[in-house]
């Protein structure tokens, strides 16, 4: 249940803030209320619904996106905080050719059942892959990194196997 207030209509007393950021490689501009969350702009203005609202307290990872390559809880980030930055959601990861190996691994290893955590898991792992770190990590390090991405279906085994199978 979200108590995030909807975007206010513009008035002299409540100016919307102009922000611009790169989303999945495209430069976009928005006018938002200061308290508008990033996840709300992604899902509602941009229709990028791959990013999910889960716990709203930063624990579950369903809302994971990348900001300047760093894993970010989009439910705990205000849209105004990403002004001038580079944002990437699950929908924007496929432009990296190596992402396909991670995606295929998820399919082959049974890393997804209901799918609700899957975007967050893939974004969390892609953060490592895009920095050239994932292929060098041990199982223990992968598990450690994924502590903040909860899955209620799979028991994590398939997710970890898919991550381990990545060679670059």
């Amino acid at each position, binding site marked *: 249940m*979200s*108590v*995030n*207030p909807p975007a*206010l209509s513009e008035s002299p*007393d*409540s*100016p919307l*803030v102009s922000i611009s950021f790169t989303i999945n490689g495209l430069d976009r501009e928005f006018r938002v*209320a*200061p*308290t508008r*969350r990033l996840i709300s702009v992604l899902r509602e203005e941009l229709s990028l619904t791959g990013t999910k609202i889960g716990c*709203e*307290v*930063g*624990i579950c*990872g369903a809302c*994971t996106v990348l900001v300047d390559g*760093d*894993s*970010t*809880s989009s*439910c*705990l*980030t*205000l849209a*105004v*905080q990403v002004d001038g930055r580079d944002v990437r959601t699950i929908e924007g990861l496929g432009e990296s050719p190596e992402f396909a190996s991670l995606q295929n691994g998820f399919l082959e290893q049974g890393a997804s059942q209901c799918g609700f955590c899957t975007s967050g898991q893939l974004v*969390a792992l892609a*953060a490592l892959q895009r920095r050239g770190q994932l292929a060098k990590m041990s199982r*223990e390090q992968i598990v*450690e*990194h994924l*502590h*903040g991405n909860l899955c209620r279906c799979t028991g994590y085994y398939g997710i970890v196997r898919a991550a381990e199978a990545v060679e670059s």
Partner: protein
Amino acid sequence: MSQRWHVPTDLGHALDLLRDDEDAVLIAGGVSMVLFMNVGFLQPTDMVSLSGLRELFGVRRTDAEIDLGAMETHTRLATDQVLRAIYPAAADMFSGIANIRVRNWGTLGGNLAHADPAQDPPVMLTVLGASAEVVGPDGSRSVPVAELADGPLTPNITDKEIITRIKIPAPSDDPLRTAYVKFLPGTKDDYATVSIAAALRCGADGRLTDVRLAGGSVGPTVVALESAAQCLEGHKPDPDVLSSVAEAVREQVNPRSDRRGSADYKREMAGLMTQRAVRGCLEGRPDGIPSSQGVGA
């Protein structure tokens, strides 16, 4: 309800915004703030972001101290090579906070201003003798980190003040041996059930000096475990000495029962984890985990 967003690039301007608007609140990484908004505890109207204040960033090393910017994130501090070289237990402590997303955005200053008694940084920074530089309309003052909270979620700073830097004494010779034990019987991304930080020096004769011990999640704020430290001061860490240390810890702490453990359990574990922290200092294990046990033990 008017909402405003400010990103001052000048500290004086930031202080003016706080002074002139009684509704203005500071936002650092935003993790705790947006969480409080999500659960309905907070409805900010005017927010002043600290992200544009360059003087709040950076890690600086002088002969006498390490100076951490209040806006440095937990991830950056966990990976800072200067901090890791001098106080590895502190770098490890930052790397163990919550999860990667919280660490990527949460800041040291924001953490200290939040003042949750279960947080890690105040416990470790207390035993290192760290102090925070707090800047306000009347100038700046230095507050020992151990005194930065008056109670749960009640920082010892006014709503007109900004924590700018955190300074940790770090003489080049004879560095403190340090350990930070974060007891997590549940999940690894949780707050500690109890946590203990230890710092000390060990003489050639095996006697311990300059002993500092502090406990987290065992009171309304960080608990400086002074009587326990006194049990160790000037002594060798023999079994009977370590027993008296654990006893002193159990007597001094005042934990609350919650979903992470009963008060009795936390009290018992505080004593045990203090012993582990001391041994961790002596055996070069900053996380205090005995080598015979695995991760999470």
